[in-house]
């Protein structure tokens, strides 16, 4: 069975606004960098298929997949779109290569929220149109807040702990390359912030960023022809939620639990605490990584472990050690690839930190934002 690997990555943006570029120009820049990073592949002759992860409403264009091929060098080639998080595109590419029918698949995703004028309405449109949307809540993140409250109360996690996570993550972001929102804050300042929707303040939500990311995935045999510096995708799995998160048990992250069982089985991981060196987790809303930590059974007492700094860059379970979405911003469906890029750079040792030089495996997590709990997990390894 062909082993899928990440052969190259490229990105553009990760800025609050990219008014100097339209999205197609950003994709072109990301693709050109990715093809170069992959050993100088030619998209016209070396790539078997292309997949883009995007949602029409974010684009402001119906049937936006029409506009995918040109800037990827994919005209008159096999190209398709997945309406989902970009890690789902990685899953599909992984499967294409494992089938034996494809050798090189390019994955693309992007988000340009700076051009979205009606974000609240769009989010409301993503809720169940019969039972949820007619409630027309004043704040569309109310269901996320309900989840945060249920999870925190059930697990006895206080707001100080949440603040500690946010402050730590923003500080870690100062070490990263794509983090316009990284900053030094303290827990006292966090606790003084007004609620946006209880128990969440504006510091609990990742601000928006524009970005395009392109990743070249190949079978290991073919990858070797282009470069020796590739990173293996050991396993990837996705589990679907619904557009009505209120139907779920909000106290725990069931989707991550199911996905983790599968992906650990695929990769032979018995003890994630010992075997996984770094965790790249979706933190577009700050309580989510804590739910993931619980669902992965990384911690029995999240309050205590946050106090002890176990999830910090020097801790034994580093979470987003070069900053996560709170620092880099919310890039919509490109978020999964943003996590993958961080993992790729850590495993290749290109971030300049020796702390992670012996890390063999990194877990990547992304969840559909904000109205669904659909979750995708992947394990990258040297």
């Amino acid at each position: 069975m062909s082993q899928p690997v990440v052969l190259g990555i490229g990105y553009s943006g990760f800025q609050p606004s990219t008014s100097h570029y339209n999205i197609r120009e950003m994709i072109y820049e990301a693709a050109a960098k990715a093809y170069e990073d992959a050993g100088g592949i030619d998209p016209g002759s070396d790539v078997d298929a292309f997949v883009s992860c995007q949602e029409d409403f974010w684009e402001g264009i119906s049937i936006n997949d029409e506009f995918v091929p040109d800037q990827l060098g994919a005209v008159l080639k096999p190209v398709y779109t997945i309406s989902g998080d970009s890690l789902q595109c990685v899953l599909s590419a992984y499967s294409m290569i494992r089938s034996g029918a494809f050798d090189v698949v390019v994955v693309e995703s992007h988000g340009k929220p700076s051009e979205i004028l009606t974000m609240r309405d769009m989010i409301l449109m993503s809720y169940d149109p019969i039972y949820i949307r007619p409630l027309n809540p004043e704040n569309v993140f109310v269901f996320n807040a309900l989840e945060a409250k249920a999870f925190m109360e059930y697990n006895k996690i206080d707001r100080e702990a949440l603040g500690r996570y946010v402050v730590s993550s923003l500080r870690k972001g100062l070490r990263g390359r794509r983090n316009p929102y990284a900053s030094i804050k303290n827990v006292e300042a966090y606790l003084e912030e007004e609620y946006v929707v209880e128990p969440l303040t504006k510091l609990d939500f990742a601000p928006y960023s524009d970005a395009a990311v392109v990743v070249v995935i190949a079978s290991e045999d073919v990858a070797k022809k282009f470069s020796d510096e590739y990173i293996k995708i050991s396993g990837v799995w996705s589990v679907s939620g619904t557009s009505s998160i209120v139907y779920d048990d909000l106290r725990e992250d069931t989707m991550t639990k199911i996905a983790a069982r599968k992906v650990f089985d695929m990769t032979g991981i018995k003890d994630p605490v010992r075997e996984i060196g770094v965790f790249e987790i979706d933190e577009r809303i700050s309580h989510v990584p804590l739910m993931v930590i619980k669902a992965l059974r990384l911690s029995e007492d999240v309050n205590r472990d946050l106090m002890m700094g176990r999830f910090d860059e020097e801790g034994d379970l580093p979470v987003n050690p070069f900053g996560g979405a709170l620092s880099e911003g919310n890039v919509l469906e490109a978020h999964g690839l943003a996590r993958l890029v961080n993992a790729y750079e850590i495993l290749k040792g290109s971030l300049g930190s020796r702390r992670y030089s012996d890390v063999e495996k990194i877990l990547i997590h992304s969840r559909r934002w904000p109205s669904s709990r659909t979750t995708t997990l992947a394990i990258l390894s040297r």
Partner: protein
Amino acid sequence: MKTNIHVKNRVAIIGAGLTLFRRRLLETPQEMTWIASKKALEQAGMDFKDIDCVISGSAPDTFDGVHMKGEYYSEGAGGFGKLHFRVFVGGGTGVFVPIAGWWMVASGLCKKALIVAEEKMSSAADPHPQAVFRHIWDPLIEKMLGPNLIWIFALEMHRYMHKCGVSKEDIALVSVKNKANALDHPCAQAAAKISVEDVLKSEVLVYPVNRLDISPVSDGAAALVMVSEDVARRYTDNPIWVAGIGFNLDSYSWTNRELAYPLYLKKAADMAYKMAGIENPMKQIDVAEPYDPFDYKELHHMEGLGLAPRCKAAELTKEGVTQRDGDLPINPSGGLLGVGNPIAAAGLMKVAEIFWQLRGEAGRRQVKKPVYTGLAQAWGDLMQVGTVIILRR
């Protein structure tokens, strides 16, 4: 792309199901996906609990009026708590869903996959769902011109007629054939016994397109059960195998290409034929369901698929070759012109029809000649995408 000699696992289809195709179905998208899925699972001898993956497809979110609509309707297909993702290539989606399902099963990641396509068009936009297509254009160059989708298809139809010397009467024969075929389809919305004259006398929408040249606005869902070989052997003695897949996307610059011939479709078909070991499709394909949202598209697509020489599909149609009892039955289901056009579901309906034809289960729609290899195809975006699947018994 390589040939399938490297593919480890064969993939079979063992069940198919459809809802009624209708304007203004009362069922929600979730309910439609449930009905189609349930029927497909019943034919396969399975239940929702037996399924490990759901691959779905639906065309623009704007039709259903739900952002991230795959998250919404997946529950109806039993996707909650399981692997599910939604693929999308505009009008080509319906045939693309089983293509994506193929590699999920061929890779060994999924053993038993539910393949679902859904569309609820009739509640979209006022005064007509066509208004959704106002938003499919390049926002910098085309959108401000206010184009309509039928306008550009009229351009393509006109170009095809001019280049190939095909008349309106020749093209209308396709509509007459497909609407008549659909009289035998239990889910059909636009089945009718009509004449060429009826087509020519129907209202001109955009010359040369008349109302009866076009498929209707529809709601509906379709589903397949797709499994690995070892599972197929346990559930049925009559599996239908996926022999080839192909897909291809041209540039969005539709104004810059030769509209008389769908090169992207030729490339998609070549990919599928290579995988299936087909060198002469006119001889080796026994029955086909090319995409026919307009009557001229059936001819256009037959030529792109290599099922007719260039500019000769109309002649084959006049000679009766494409009738159910002809040498190469084309759209024995009644196609989109007769059964209806809930976009993604319509494409998957075509795959379901080939599945039933190869199993000999198409009832009154069963073609007369023995059939071993069949093809389904869909088309979409800005006249730029071709999706092809080849099934074999």
